[in-house]
């Protein structure tokens, strides 16, 4: 069992969980993820490690409520425990001195770029973080990133905070500033956003890495459920990734494969809420 030390709401439906996991904390590098199972009979899901503290023996997870498993996880409080956490998994981010690096995070994807910022900064890069959200409360980790990055540029769809528009709009501005050339871009977030980022950097030929989030089961290469096409080749995100050259990734296919269980995900979430909140009337059911 993995005991939760701290549990806070970081944004609406976004939880910050600090969990005792000393073995994982000792080995965690930027880019790594974990696979966890909240309870017995629960699903195994991959989650990025936003931060680790090898002294304290903790890892920090940033989780958005999107279905049964994440809902179950986000209801846990400090002192409660997660049944299983395996990791760290995946290959770590390639940390080197690129020069000026722009990190582009969308929603909880910002939790992926946070450890990258720490690693890249320690390696001497100048870092600009472009972080997006629907509106102000959905922009996360701005303060934490501010302590590491040379500039943090929040973007909101509704203009309630920072730049009014998508992260790609801001990214285009940065690239247009020829006085401050961008040497590398790392991005994590919803698939449409990462695809848009790749499209922006493809023309100018800027080295761009995307952290992919396909459906996974075991996370050790055994099942192949997380396969993605990169440069026309089949890769397993869990052992070959999860970070790949964004210009080579087939995002359309990734996006489609992510919908494979949409119906079951809804059933599972309804089932969970019926048990967790007796009397709960699912709004989705009413709408139908």
């Amino acid at each position, binding site marked *: 069992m993995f005991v939760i030390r701290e549990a806070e709401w970081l944004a609406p439906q976004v939880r910050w969980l600090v969990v005792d996991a000393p*073995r994982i904390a000792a080995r965690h590098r930027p880019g790594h993820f974990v696979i966890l199972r909240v309870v017995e009979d629960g699903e195994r899901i991959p989650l990025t490690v936003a931060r680790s503290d090898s002294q304290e023996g903790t890892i920090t997870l940033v989780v958005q409520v999107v279905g*049964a498993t994440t809902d179950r996880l986000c209801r846990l409080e400090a002192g409660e425990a997660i049944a299983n956490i*395996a*990791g760290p998994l995946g290959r770590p981010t390639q940390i080197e001195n690129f020069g000026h690096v722009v990190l582009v995070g969308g929603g909880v994807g910002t939790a992926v770029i946070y450890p990258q910022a720490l690693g890249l900064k320690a390696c001497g890069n100048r870092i600009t973080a472009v972080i997006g959200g629907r509106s102000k409360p959905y922009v996360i980790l701005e303060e934490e990133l501010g302590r590491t990055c040379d500039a943090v540029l929040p973007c909101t769809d509704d203009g309630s905070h920072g730049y009014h528009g998508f992260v790609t709009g801001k990214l285009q501005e940065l690239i247009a500033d020829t006085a401050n050339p961008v040497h590398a871009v790392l991005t994590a977030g919803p698939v449409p956003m990462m695809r848009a980022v790749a499209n922006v950097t493809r023309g100018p030929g800027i080295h761009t890495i995307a952290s992919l989030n396909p459906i996974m*089961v075991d996370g*050790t290469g055994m099942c192949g459920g997380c396969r993605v096409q990169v440069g026309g080749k*089949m890769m397993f995100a869990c052992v070959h990734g999860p970070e790949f050259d964004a210009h080579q990734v087939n995002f359309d296919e990734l996006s489609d494969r992510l919908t494979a269980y949409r119906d*079951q995900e809804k059933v*599972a979430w309804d089932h969970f809420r019926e048990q967790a909140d007796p009397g709960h009337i699912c709004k989705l059911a009413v709408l139908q």
Partner: protein
Amino acid sequence: MNTADRMKIPRQAMPEQEPQERSHNFQEVNLGLATEAARLEAERCLRCRNAKCVTGCPVGVNIPHFMEAVAEGDLNRAADILFESNVLPGITGRVCPQEIQCEAQCIRGKKSTSAAVGYLERFVADWARENRPDQLVPPPSTGKRVAVVGGGPAGLTCAGELAKKGHQVTVFEAMHKPGGVLVYGIPEFRLPKAIVDAEVDKLRRMGVRIVCDVVVGQTYTIRDLLDEEGFHAVFIANGAGLPIFQGIPGEQLKGVYSANEYLTRVNLMGAFRFPANDTPVIRAPQIAVVGGGNVAMDAVRTARRLGADPATLIYRRSREEMPARAEEVKHAEQEGVVFDMLCSPVEILGTEDGWVRAVRCQRMELGEPDASGRRSPVPIAGSEFEIPCQVFIEAIGTRANPLITQTTPELKTNKWGYIEIDANNMTSIPGVFAGGDIVRGAATVILAMGDGKRTAAAINTYLAK
């Protein structure tokens, strides 16, 4: 009883759940012999002095002595003989391909049918599990610590054998539950998970420590285990690796699975109980599986139980070349699985919204024998046709898992990425041994167990130095 009398006894039939009924449930197909049938079957053994059956057993069970004890009704003694050579008999009695091992060597088989060693192994293991307390007397501790990487058949066997010698063993398992292929791969209807759990619990009572959620290669490197965690020896048995896909168009469609993923969802994650269990699996009215081994049989029979009609098995050679256990093929057929032999998929066809709708195949004919000695399939021009299906499962094998070798560069591998070992099962790193699928490529449970057992002996010798 003389040999002539023994020869008169017919081979006892394994009671089974009716095919009609079992093709809709996940309960075990084979029900086990009754006591009298087991005794009679044991009398069929001719008690050969130079027993060939023992040489056919990868873990060398003393079969004639075992048979004699069963015939005498001394199940306690029979169990002792079994456990002496095999720490997981309840499992091997169910999943070993006896027809190409012990039973293939049985002299009776030359005249009629061989003695049913597998049925009796299962009978005695089940009896022992339910009727006798542990006979385990922990030996004095040697003070030596051994790390076993992987809680599958090779790892568990090695751990059990080392514990018998008094070594302190820790098994590191990557998943949340030990058992490896016994829990993620082999379905409940062939090997009930309660039996695996019981066998694993027995190892725990022997003093074996099992730590789940540790992915060696990631959580610890092999070096960490030796240098920082203080283990005197390591056994790498992390099993089969990445599933192979055929490389045909359409493999990214929704509804295409590797057999590993399909079986893991259903077995390890309990997707057949969805939504009581959280993990889903795509249910489809028509499912096709490509492959001819035990994994393909497990996948297609699972698909059948999840309601597929037809559940079709596609294989590019003919029935005779199929590597699956004979019993699995028979059971699959009884359960209504459709066999489409001499057939090879060339493309998976999808709907507009990205779901599988059919698999396009071509007919094959058998040509000259290939490197494996089997006649190789050759496509027949112009023979293409479609098999409608909404889920398509590929069970055509696996490649080496890279997790340990990529973080342990000094570990020597062959060109396919499998770990190289010497005659003592030791790798290029002193004190680090390896066995099972990560050495031999995808094979059977019992061959992995044989590796585990032999390596335990080698580790024991190594630690005594």
